[in-house]
């Protein structure tokens, strides 16, 4: 039995931007790997499109951007925001592929800059698998599989990375319709004896379970914290009372009680009664 796997299909951000001002009609089930091969000035349009489409996606960086430190630094805020949109895929396992379009395999140069930036923004444990598009067939790095497919035939691909299998196409893609056609030519599957279906389900729910456990701990912490905070506030009020009232001379406080009687806040008779019924207004 083969278990179908939904891969991420590599698409140029430039191609998506052909639809700036509108929304490209890609079937929502098609997951995307968006190669950020556009100048910084076009990122607002890309953000608008990705905010509007329903497709789940990951992003990847061209190797040329990662080797040029200033270029890389300038796109990091955009990478962070793109990876924060709600349809960014949470199941791929924090990967940001680095993809060479022309020659040579990228060596992940400056990947630590991306990692540090993401860590400073509260993101942990990102991986940067390096691939290149000129190498036909399978490439595997950092628990991620990229397969460069020919577009003149149907492809059936077995994977062992159900969460992070990426498909790229060897030839250029002129428009979205062609892209959709190519995606329909690819079938990706995994064998149940490698990872059981139960394992996939488990992986999918593992993070959510952890979030609920953390949330339960948080509420428990709130309970203990509220005790400390309220205790502190209680002593602050008590301290204020002693500083502001208790230190006043007795005659002043007695005068205060007479004023209370005049204002109707307590009865005249209560001045001569030790068991005072306090006004609770």
């Amino acid at each position, binding site marked *: 039995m083969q278990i179908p796997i939904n891969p991420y299909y590599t698409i140029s951000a430039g191609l998506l931007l052909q639809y700036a001002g509108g929304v490209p009609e890609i079937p929502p089930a098609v997951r995307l790997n968006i190669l950020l091969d556009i100048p910084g000035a076009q*990122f*607002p349009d890309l*953000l*608008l499109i990705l*905010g*509007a489409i329903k497709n789940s996606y990951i992003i990847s960086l061209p190797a040329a951007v990662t080797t040029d430190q200033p270029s890389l630094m300038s796109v990091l*805020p*955009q990478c*962070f*925001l793109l990876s*924060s*949109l*709600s349809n*960014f895929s*949470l199941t791929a396992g924090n990967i940001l592929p680095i993809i060479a379009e022309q020659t040579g395999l990228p060596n992940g140069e400056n990947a630590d800059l991306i990692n540090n930036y993401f860590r*400073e*923004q*509260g*993101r942990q444990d990102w991986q940067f698998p390096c691939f290149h598009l000129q190498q036909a067939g399978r490439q595997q790095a950092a628990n991620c599989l990229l397969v460069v497919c020919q577009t003149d035939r149907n492809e059936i691909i077995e994977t062992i990375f159900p969460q992070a299998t990426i498909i790229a196409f060897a030839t250029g893609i002129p428009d979205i319709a062609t892209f959709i056609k190519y995606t329909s030519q690819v079938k990706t599957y995994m064998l149940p004896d490698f990872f059981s279906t139960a394992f996939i389900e488990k992986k999918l729910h593992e993070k*959510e379970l952890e*979030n*609920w456990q*953390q*949330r339960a701990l*948080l*509420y428990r*912490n*709130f309970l203990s*914290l*509220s005790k*400390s*905070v*309220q205790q*502190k*506030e209680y002593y602050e009020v008590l301290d204020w009372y002693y500083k502001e009232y208790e230190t006043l001379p007795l005659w002043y406080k007695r005068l205060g009680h007479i004023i209370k009687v005049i204002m109707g806040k307590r009865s005249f008779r209560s001045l001569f009664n030790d068991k005072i019924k306090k006004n609770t207004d």
Partner: protein
Amino acid sequence: MNNEPAIAVLYHIFYEDSYDLVCSELQPLQSYHPVLLFNICAETPGKKEMSEEIKKAFPGCFVIFTSNKGKDIGAKLAMLQLFMQLQLQADYFLLLHDKKSLQALKSATWKTDLLKIIFPDNIATVFQRFEENDHCGIVATKEYIITEPFEENKFSGINGQLLSGLVPAYGLKPASLEFVAGTMFWVRATPLLQFFGRFHPLEIRKQLENGNVIDNFSGTVTHSWERLLSWIITSDKMFIAGI
């Protein structure tokens, strides 16, 4: 001619049961056709489902997930960066979050009080305050406009030491030390965007603490920025109006 103010709402959601609350709170604003940006805490269980519901309830909105860094302040900074990256336009921002402050004695009334600024009867008053006076930079619930203690020529509150460093570092010279406690307020967009054009929100967000920090026992950068968000405006010769 359309005189309707352009509004952008930046709403941070931390709690897993906030969806209904968010929908009901934002209902009175819908007639103003606001730009809606939501940040759901990345550690909030059910965030994916909640984001889908929000997108259905508010078509055209943007939803991001960011980690719990700098609490609602960090989230608002991330949303401001997104707003700027999207090159959207607004006359006024409305900053909101699903505050509960479960540790505080007054937690039950705190949020309700802060939300006075979006009660249907008050929204027109908010815009009136802005329109009446060009120097009105922030409109907030008056009970939560408080003054940071400053004694003997220095900040004397629990965040004092941090504020002494941050205020000059960001070139702030607030005319008064009033700020909106709880960080839910209306604010004029221009001065805020001018400031964050010079100091990028995500660069500031880096410095904020992770997790649910509180400043009951010691100062935090996060709570210092709670003050600075107001002082960005009051440093620009503007004041905070209470309703």
